[in-house]
């Protein structure tokens, strides 16, 4: 065990979840830090996800804690898919804020399967009118995954190609989801809406952007928002989605940044 001046770097500490410890060590190694409250909140989040069988479906979880790019870029789930931020972000205990930037999650929809995928975020800002998260391509056909919400229009694709959107909140936790080839769904704070939507093969050459959209390799439609969580992974059952919201809302409440 190595005791560093800015924290504890260790391969194992009795009683501490190994996955959380690996995440914490990644934050420290990247030059970030976490307050005691943030450490405890992320530990509890890992415990809650594991207790509800939600750890395994996750590919990327960005808790957005640590008030720095180094810390907020880290994936809680694994050392893969560390994010990167464009210029123009402000990092605070309440999350990450921008009016012009985007975050590249470095994860492609094809990391999940055509009929089992979810992606989403927790947004504290009620600004509307922009793509919040996603990726699309236009060749050989138009398809993709994204969440776009305005007061008048909601567009969302989940490995699909139709633009008949499901309502999505302007703040809070919004998760797009698919668990079969016939329907897409959106969970707003854990509450499901769904509609028929045939699935297409996932985009395999471009990655998810948070805030705005990855339009076949170019950032587009960035807007004003403050994110304090983002998630990408396999499709979730209704119960899993509800439990996920409960765990994330408790996490945000511990950090005094819930909406």
């Amino acid at each position: 065990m190595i005791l560093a001046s800015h924290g504890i770097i260790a391969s194992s500490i009795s009683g501490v979840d190994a996955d959380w410890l690996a995440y914490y060590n990644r934050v420290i190694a990247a030059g970030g830090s976490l307050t005691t409250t943030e450490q405890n909140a992320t530990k509890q989040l890992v415990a809650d996800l594991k207790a509800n069988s939600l750890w395994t479906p996750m590919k990327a979880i960005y808790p957005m804690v640590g008030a720095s790019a180094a810390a907020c870029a880290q994936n809680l789930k694994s050392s893969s898919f560390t994010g990167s931020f464009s210029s123009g972000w402000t990092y605070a205990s309440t999350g990450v804020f921008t009016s012009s930037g985007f975050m590249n999650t470095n994860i492609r929809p094809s990391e999940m399967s055509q009929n089992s995928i979810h992606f989403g975020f927790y947004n504290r800002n009620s600004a509307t009118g922009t793509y919040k998260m996603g990726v699309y391509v236009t060749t050989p056909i138009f398809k993709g995954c994204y969440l776009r919400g305005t007061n008048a229009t909601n567009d969302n694709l989940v490995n699909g190609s139709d633009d008949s959107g499901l309502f999505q909140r302007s703040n809070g936790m919004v998760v797009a989801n698919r668990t079969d080839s016939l329907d897409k769904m959106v969970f707003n704070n854990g509450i499901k809406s769904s509609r028929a939507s045939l699935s297409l093969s996932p985009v395999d050459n471009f990655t998810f952007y948070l805030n705005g959209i990855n339009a076949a390799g170019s950032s587009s439609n960035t807007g004003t928002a403050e994110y304090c969580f983002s998630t990408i992974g396999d499709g979730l059952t209704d119960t899993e989605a509800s439990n996920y919201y409960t765990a994330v809302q408790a996490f945000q409440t511990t950090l005094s940044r819930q909406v």
Partner: protein
Amino acid sequence: MIGYILSIEQKEAIQGVFFATDIFFNCIQDINDVWFLFLSEQDKEILPQEYLYLLDLPQGEYIPKPSPPFPR
């Protein structure tokens, strides 16, 4: 929204370049196709010496392009 105004050459020199481990420059075109760069106060604090010239660039009001039509 106020941003730094860049020439095409200045934009080409920095677009996508990482100036910190987890942060890269991203320039955006306004409604008149002028290139803009936005830096948060935190970005400015960690900007490497070689990019400090960016803080001396002229600034102007950024007006975004209208959202493109739905891409189908």
